[in-house]
Structures are given as C-alpha cells and as structure tokens.
C-alpha cells in the first residue's frame, strides 16, 4: 500500500509539473498582458516601468525558472490586477464552486440512481419509457438556456428565488439544479444500462435460484457490480463540473473560481491563470486517486493486483 501511495504521489508531482510548464509556455505565446492591463493613455515610458515592475521584461527562460522556484516555495506570485496573492484569489473562491458542484452531483446521484433502477426493473415499462424521453431532454437542453429560463420563472415571474449571488442555500437552488439536470439524465441512463447487463449475469441468476428476494437481488447482488462504471463516471463528472461550471457561475453571478479564472484568461493575468490550473490539476489527481481506491473497495480483483 505504501509503495502504491508513493508511486501515485510521484506521478502526481510529475503531472503537475508538466501541466504548469505547458500552460506557462502557452499563455506566454498568446499575447502581452501589458497591452491589456495598461490604460490606453499610458505612455510608452510608463508602460516600460510597469512591465519592469511586474518582471515581464525578463527573458522567458528567466521568468520560467523564477516562477518554478516561486512555486516550490509556495509562492505563486500576485495578480497583475488586484495585487493579491494569486493562489488566495483562487482558493477563497473554491468553497463556492465545491458547494455548487457537490450539491448538483448529490442531486444527480440521489435522483439518477433510483430512476435508473426503476427503469431497469421493468425494461420498456411505462416508467422506463417516460424516464428515457426525459433523459433525452436532459442531455440536450443547454446550460445557459436552462439557467435563464429558471431565472425568468423563479426570479422575475414568481419572485421566489434570488437571481444572483451566493449568500444562502436558496441562492444555490437554481444553479445546482441547472448543473444537475444533465447529470440526472446521464446517471439514469448509465445505471439502467449497466444494471440490465448485470441482471443477466451468472451470479445474479444463482442468487435468484437460491430464492433470494427480488429487492435483495437487485440492490445487493446486481447493483454492486453495476456501480463500478458509475464510480468512474462520477469521478469524471466531478472533475468536469469542478473545472467547467463557468457558464453557470457567470449566469447566476456566483463568485466561484471558474469565473475568476475566465476573467484572468481574458486579461492575461498569468499568475492567476497558473494558480487556477494548479488547483484544477491537483483536484483531478486527487479524484483519480480516490476513484482508484473506490475501485479497490468495490472490486476484489483490482485490490489484489493494486
């Protein structure tokens, strides 16, 4: 187990280094932050002073080495725009994003898994057919449209939910549902299809032959096997949402880290972009690690080869 952990930690560090270096080189190739930062009226002399003050007058190699050295010391530099440490700007917005993602994934699993089971128990029954058409709808409505639609009804027409901000749980209802909508459909379809597959497998038939009651067969024998692909998709979705909630954060004016990162990208605020990339990469590495662990718990074969 210790060797497993060490290997994974080493791989994680290597991944982070590659990601940061790639992004560092890519963003420096895209443009000049001073051209966006400096007001139009600023003279050439003042621009040069500003460039030097931000260390952007140095050769790229020097900037890169300095940046890496800073990262190793836990210093990711300060934002060109706010003067605040770049990492803090991102980290103080992580909770909002995590709450949003956690809520929507939670809703998606709590609704999607039972729906999937329900649909699989009687394939082509009424519930199955209704759920299938609903899941097509769920997978095809774009986030921004659903968000605006919800705002129109629940903020303007009925005036029961706030259109923007992150002050209370009420503020999260619409954004979390907007994000969850697609995932409910996804989990429903996934659980349905994998469950249908496992219901025909030998161990399920054996259980039935032994006279185990149908709910126990489904929930204990079949579902456990069917959960494996779900865990993989759950991990992928979590990572995708964590780094992809930007449209929802923008529409509902939630102060999440993705909105901050998008602004930083527009303005070429390098330190903030890099801090964001580091956080997201670290998150992905952690999720993958947890997914691997969960595999071990659910599937004895993985555990023994680990």
């Amino acid at each position: 187990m210790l060797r497993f952990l060490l290997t994974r930690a080493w791989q994680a560090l290597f991944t982070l280094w590659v990601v940061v270096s790639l992004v560092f080189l890519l963003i420096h190739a895209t443009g000049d932050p001073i051209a966006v930062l400096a007001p139009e009226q600023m003279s050439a002399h003042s621009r040069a002073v500003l460039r030097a003050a931000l260390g952007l007058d140095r050769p790229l190699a020097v900037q890169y080495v300095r940046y890496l050295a800073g990262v190793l010391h836990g210093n990711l530099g300060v934002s060109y725009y706010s003067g605040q440490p770049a990492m803090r700007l991102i980290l103080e917005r992580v909770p909002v994003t995590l709450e949003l993602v956690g809520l929507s994934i939670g809703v998606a699993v709590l609704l999607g898994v039972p729906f999937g089971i329900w649909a699989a128990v009687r394939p082509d029954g009424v519930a199955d057919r209704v759920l299938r058409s609903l899941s097509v709808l769920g997978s095809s409505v774009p986030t921004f449209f659903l968000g605006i639609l919800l705002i129109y009804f629940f903020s303007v027409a009925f005036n029961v939910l706030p259109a923007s901000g992150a002050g209370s749980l009420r503020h999260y209802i619409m954004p979390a549902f907007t994000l969850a909508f697609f995932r409910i459909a996804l989990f429903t379809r996934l659980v349905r299809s994998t469950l249908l597959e496992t219901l025909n497998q030998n161990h399920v038939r054996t259980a039935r032959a032994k006279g185990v009651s149908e709910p126990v067969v489904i929930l204990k024998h079949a579902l456990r096997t069917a959960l494996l692909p779900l865990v993989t998709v759950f991990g992928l979705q979590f990572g995708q949402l964590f780094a992809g909630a930007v449209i929802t954060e923008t529409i509902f004016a939630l102060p999440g880290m993705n909105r901050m990162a998008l602004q930083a990208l527009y303005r070429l605020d390098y330190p903030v972009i890099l801090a964001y990339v580091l956080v997201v990469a670290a998150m992905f590495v952690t999720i993958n690690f947890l997914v691997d662990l969960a595999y071990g718990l659910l599937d004895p074969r993985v555990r023994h080869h680990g």
Partner: protein
Amino acid sequence: MPSWTTRLLAACGTAACLLAQSPAAQAALGDSAQHPLVVAFKGGATTLDPIMRSETTTESWQRNIFDTVTILSPQGKPVPRIAVAWKNLAPLSWQLTLRAGVTFQNGMPMTAEDVGRSIMDAANNPKSQMREFVNDVTGYKVVNPTTLEVAFSRPDPLFPVHLSAIPVMPEALIKKEGRAAFAAHPIGTGAYRFVSWLAEDHLDLRAWKGYWGHPVAFKFVRLESIPNGATRLAALLSGQIEVAEKINPEDFARVKNSGRARITSVPGTRTMYLAMDDWRETGSPGMAAGEKNPFLDPRVRKAVYEAIDVGLLREKIFNDAATVATQFMPPLMESFDRGLKRFPYSLADARKLLAAAGYPHGFTVRLDATNDRYLEDSLVAQALAGMLQQVGIIVQVNAIPKAVFFPQMNRGDFTFYLAGWGSVDPLSTWNSMFHCRDAKLGFGHVNREHYCSQAADALIAKASGSFDDAARVKLERAAYALADRTDIAYIPLYFQDEIAGVANGVVWNERPDGLILAWQMQRK
C-alpha cells in the same frame, strides 16, 4: 408581460408563493445591513488600492470610500472635493486651497501633506495607472495647513481636470502598514466606510459618521457584480437590486414597461472611431500582398466617412442609446464645438470621391475589431462592412478578443480597424493620438496611423502653455478642425452612452464620466 405569465402569476397561490420574500416587510431600503441599497455592475473592482487601476468600474467602487482632489461636473468642469479652490501662480506652479476639517475614516485628520504625497504617489509608483494625469508634477510644498503649491516640469493648464483622477490617501498609514495591507482594508475620506468585500464580486459599505459632506441618503450600500446582462435585468425587475448598469439596448422597453424601474442614459466620454493606415504605401496588413494602400488618399478617407450612416447604427444597434459623433472629442471636453456637424451621409458623393481617387469599383480590405471590449463592437463592425459594400468597398470583418486585438493594434499590425478612445483631455489626447510620432519626446505613442500635421501640432503646443481658457479652447478647436475636417485623421463614429436601470425608489442619473457613486444617490 405576456398574458400567460399573468395567468400563471394569478394561479400562483401555493407553496411557491409563500416562499416569496417581500422586501417591503423588512426595514426601509438602505437602513440596515440586511437590506442595503444594491448597485449591480457588469464587472467588479479588481483592487481597492485607488491608484492601481484606471478603469471605470474599479474607480466607481473605490470612489465611494475615497475622495478625489476635484471631481467633474456633468458639464465636464472640475468642481471642488478635497480642493475647494485652485489658482495658477506661474506656468510651472499651481496653488491648491484644501478643505479644512476633513478626517480619514480611522479618525486621523487629513493634512496637506497627505494630499501632496498622494499626488506624488500617483505620479511615481511604478504600478500606478494614474501616472499620465500628473506626469509633469515634480514636487509640492505645504504653505500652510490648507494651502499646497505644486511644481511642474512642463505647464499643465488642465491640472484641475487631472486632479479628478487623483485619490487622497492616508499616506502615513500606508507607509506604516504597506500598500497590500492598506488595499485589504482601505481607509479614505469619502462618504462610505469599507466593511468587507470579495474582489470582483461585491463590496459592502456603511455610511461614515465623520464624513465632511452632505449626509448620504442610504446608510448601507452593497456594490456587486452580475456579469450576465439577462440576470442583471432579472434582478432589477424582481426588486433584488436597485441600480443595474449597462442595460442592453434591446431591453429598454422591458424596463420601461415593468413599472418598477426606469432607464437613465447620457453621452459618455468614449469615442468609437475608425482608424486608417496613413503611412505604408503597399503591403499593409489586411490588404492583398503588394496592393497599394488606398487610405493614403484623403479622398478615399472622406468617401469611407460619407458612406457610413451613423444615425442608422445608433437607431438599429443601440436603440438610440449612443450619440452620433460630430467630431473626435466628446461633448464633455472643453474643445467640443457645438456648431460642428458631420460630413453628410451621401453614397453618391462617396462614389464620386472613390472614382476620382482611382477606385471606381472600390477595393477589398480587412476591418479588424474586438468582440469583447466595446458595447456591440463586432455587430457594429458587421454593419459597417454592409454599409461600405454599397460603394464597392468589400470589407472582411475580423472580430477578435481584446487580448489578441490590442497587442496587434499596438504593433501597428492593422490597416483599417474599429476601436475606442476614452478621453482624458483634448491636449493629452492630441499628444498621444494625433501628434507627429516622436519617440524621444514621447509624442504620438498611440498614433499607430502615423498621422502628422505640423501646423496642428504647433497649435496644440501653444495651447499646452496657455492658461487663458478662451484662448486655449480656440487653439484646440483649430487643431482638431484640421485633423477632423481637413485631413480626416480618424473617422469618428459615435460616443457610447452611459446607461443604467434605476428602481423607482431611487434617484440616480448617469454621469458622463461613467462613475456610479452611491453617495450621490437620493431617495424618491
């Protein structure tokens, strides 16, 4: 509102409606921290250090906490804030009379030393974005507690205007705790005290009891960012916020018909213009390789000017919330000439000019524009392409993000492009946008078109040393007439309007400088 929503509303008598919060049931607007006056912006302030960012939203948020030395009136004249009077003693010296009895929000009295050092900070801090306003200041002298003399390396007749960009900061405190700590908990002399904030998201403010000016109408104020236009509008119409800036032109009718809010708009200080390469004979980027640059011929420039129907842009794209530019400098500037009109829109005349210049069938050119910087920028570029096609000029629109556009523009990589200029004053605008390029003296540093008129430069040089307002304005107008009318250095299109939606309980009229200041808002 369509009738089906009305019916839904009528039918809504269930649990959902019980959840509804009625703001009226709480304390009066702006009287408690739970129910503050809320002003929503498209963006948010990136920093609360008042010299680090020259950008309207950031300045709006900061200037509820900080006073500037002067402020611009709706007519563009500098009027007293911290300075109550100013006098020009000699070409290189201004005297400021300061308001007595002003106190910082930490209880420390504001001194003449604070004002002097704030000006020097704005001029000298390497990261200061206010440098251009006070570039020529060399030092100051405190004559007595309310009198300050400021010394210059070059005459600055518009110093009182420039002081409207200079915030007064508690310099002793900044020296003690450092700029970063100061920006995290800013202290100024303004009407509101800092309570808490999240950069670019929201700023909570509370009226300050020791404020020297009129007591404010709203004790608790929250400034926040709602980036999405539809959400901002929804928040205004549902009563969640009181003021929403930058309402999209197509939504004006909805605001007016809602019965809960109104629209306020005023011509701003941003000129949208077309720039044309005025120096490369051939091989301009955006033209076919080896092709002659048609814009070198003044007749072509005038033809483009006359082929554009700005009135139509104003009506169709901006729903009348833009002002047709009769000249490059916007109405707020002292050089603005009310008597001027645009060259009339005339396709026939434009075709005649093109034929005379040797382009009877027009030519092909790329028009570069941003798609995320100015209100409806890429839409305007598309519309211009359509208009120019009528006189045979085939325009390929290249609308790109600002982060890509501006570096290319600064390198002079464009032949023909749409951009905006936020004006400070007619003199510095001339010296950076119109003056013959001179890297050594720092003239024409954003004159990417290499426009050059020595006659006009001479007029501006004379105006720059003139402290007689009437004489100076006459010189400025003469210079701009040469550039705008004779040479057509740029084609001015329109001035962007400053627009906001305001709830019924609040009195607020947009300012031409675009600042939204809670301390100037009133109750109705």
